[in-house]
């Protein structure tokens, strides 16, 4: 998917879809159509009001929540905020270190939130917060067998990503860099490889520091970007949320528009008189 083909018709299709009231460039996952390709996390927000403003500014329609950190039972909680803003919840298993932990947490989420979607996080250690590949594979198998739609948070490893897809993952979510580091996309080539081989949606998840990182993820062919810290811990979270809205859109359009090849030598933008045009 997402081959670099020039498609002159694309802008017209986009315009027509927008005129008809449908999302211009929908992100479809598990049969659900989302109007935004930005998925937001909620951790680290200074206040509920601040988080709400950032989510609205980002235009997100899907937001992930750590089931280990937030209780759906409390009134006036984060979950109510998401309901109020009509944002779909993607529960996640942050804080789980074993497949067993993750499966139990996913079951808790399914019961409490009545969704079989789960963002699967199985973390190896507190210092890196990197996924534990072995437990991740194990948990994916178990959760798929239990009927979950697994959004697998994974290392930027093309072999592992494909393995997770083969085991039934609904989406694969490779990291750009370790959680919370804001280091951007450390191995763009691997992300491109994952995208090139995947037939399920690829969501760049973790490591995003600022808007240009998200634009790059989309230019590399990812279907969506998931981030939390870059917005929730920004000095002005709402403004940063809006920045990411534009960045994801810009990266997506750039990918579809088809970038020029990289050249060693300069090429004047206007061709010299009297020469044939080859482009």
């Amino acid at each position, binding site marked *: 998917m997402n081959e670099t083909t020039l498609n002159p018709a694309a802008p017209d299709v986009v315009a027509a879809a927008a005129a008809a009231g449908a999302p211009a460039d929908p992100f479809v996952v598990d049969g659900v159509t989302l109007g935004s390709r930005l998925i937001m996390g909620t951790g680290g927000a*200074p*206040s*509920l*009001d*601040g988080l*709400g403003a950032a989510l609205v500014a980002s235009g997100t329609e899907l937001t992930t929540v750590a089931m*280990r*950190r*937030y*209780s759906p*039972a*409390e*009134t*006036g*909680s*984060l979950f*109510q*905020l998401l*309901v*109020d803003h009509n944002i779909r919840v993607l529960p996640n298993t942050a804080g789980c270190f074993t497949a067993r932990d993750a499966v139990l947490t996913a079951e808790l989420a399914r019961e409490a939130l009545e969704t079989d979607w789960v963002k699967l996080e199985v973390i190896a250690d507190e210092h890196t917060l990197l996924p534990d590949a072995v437990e991740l594979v194990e948990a994916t198998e178990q959760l798929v067998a239990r009927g979950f739609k697994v959004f697998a948070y994974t290392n930027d490893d093309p072999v592992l990503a494909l393995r997770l897809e083969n085991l039934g993952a609904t989406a694969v979510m490779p990291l750009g860099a370790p959680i*919370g580091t804001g280091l951007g996309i450390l191995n763009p080539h691997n992300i491109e490889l994952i995208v090139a081989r995947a037939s399920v949606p690829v969501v760049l998840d973790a490591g995003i520091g600022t808007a240009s990182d998200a634009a790059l993820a989309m230019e590399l062919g990812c279907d969506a970007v998931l981030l939390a810290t870059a917005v929730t*811990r920004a*000095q*002005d979270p709402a403004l940063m949320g809006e920045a990411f809205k534009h960045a994801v859109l810009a990266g997506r359009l750039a990918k579809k528009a088809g970038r020029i090849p990289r050249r060693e030598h300069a090429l004047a933008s206007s061709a010299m008189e009297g020469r044939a045009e080859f482009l």
Partner: protein
Amino acid sequence: MGARASHEAEAANGAASRDCGGRRGSCEDSTPEDISAAGDITADVAVIGGGVIGHGIAFEASRAGRSVVLIDDAPGSGASWAAAGMLAPVSELHYQEEQLLELMLESSRLWPGFAAAIDAGAACVKTGPAGTASGAGTGYLTTPTLAVGADAADRRALTDLRQAQQACGLTVEPLTVREARGREPLLSPGISCAFDIPADHQVDPRLLIARLAELLDAEGNSCVRRRAAGLLWEDGRVAGVRLAGGGSVRAAETVVANGLGASALDGLPPELVLPLRPVYGDILRLRVPGHLRPLLTATVRGMVRGVPVYIVPRQDGTVVIGATQREDGPADPNAVSAGGIYQLLRDAQQLVPAVAELELLEATARARPGTPDNAPLLGRVAAADGGDVPGLIIATGFFRHGVQLTPAAAAVSRQLMDGTADPRWDGFRPDRFSRVPGTSGDSHNKEAA
């Protein structure tokens, strides 16, 4: 638990020495039997909730010459029992919370006078027959706070925050690590930065409540050890408090200061939404062995790999290490999180390695009353006719800042009772989440009901 036992002991001692400055005759803690025998109690002011805020408001009202009844079945046992008591408008500043900062700074200006008034009253109580009752003070200290970072990213984060603090006119001065360790030799040599914050101080909330309870008692006010069931209404005004199990307290002004319990009271104005949510916190109290004293002279607030932790040294040779923020909804709201305690000790040790040598006295968890904008719900409530509901003041939702904001809450409540409200604090009105129909507050309130 402990809060209640110690509070009763203090109150009993205070009652034995009530002659100094007492205006009215006797004051005894009312038991359910007293109330059913005597019928209703009448006072100028009824305060629901015996945490720092309720005690502070009751004390201020009493100082202004009003008779007060404080209603709580377990005074001082809620969030106040856990609180570290940092008075920290500067290091508590968060981006985009400038309006809250104004109230925090106002409270800091009030703190010296508030503490002095308590000390003066306590000295007076102490001269009574039970001379040993008081004298421990409130633990109010104007020692500074040091903000320190653990790694390079923490240094950058604290440096960025300092710019915001300075833009608000606050004083935060960078120290070299050597300078910081000259002042606090047990700080780890490995810290990445240090800042001196002279305006952030501390008080001991447990001592504070004990002193305020003694003073209220000595002034002839009463503490009703019962749960408030709801508000009493009469002719369109709030006329007091209905007690659980029967009986009532009738008062010209009723103050709702019972933290998270506020939204569960019967008889709140029907359109009023109090969007309170529990934000749990774990906190530790430890004793410093003699050979390590003083562990610290200043309060140390650290950022360790992006996560905040603080160490507050008390005069009695103990330290307080806190605090987590959890919204995980444990079955027992006072249950302590093992993971939370682990993280606190791990991060505190990174800043002050000798923390590993301390004796662990207590691990406590309580729920703070959080609001959507982290600011309190403080003031009067709009009535359907356009004015304010007479006789009702709300003072809850103080979240992490209850101790710091106690003098401000007390002063604002007193101004409301005197009819001299300061428009600067209108932004904290408790009905600010209730005004737009069909908003989030409305819907979740219905679900909760």
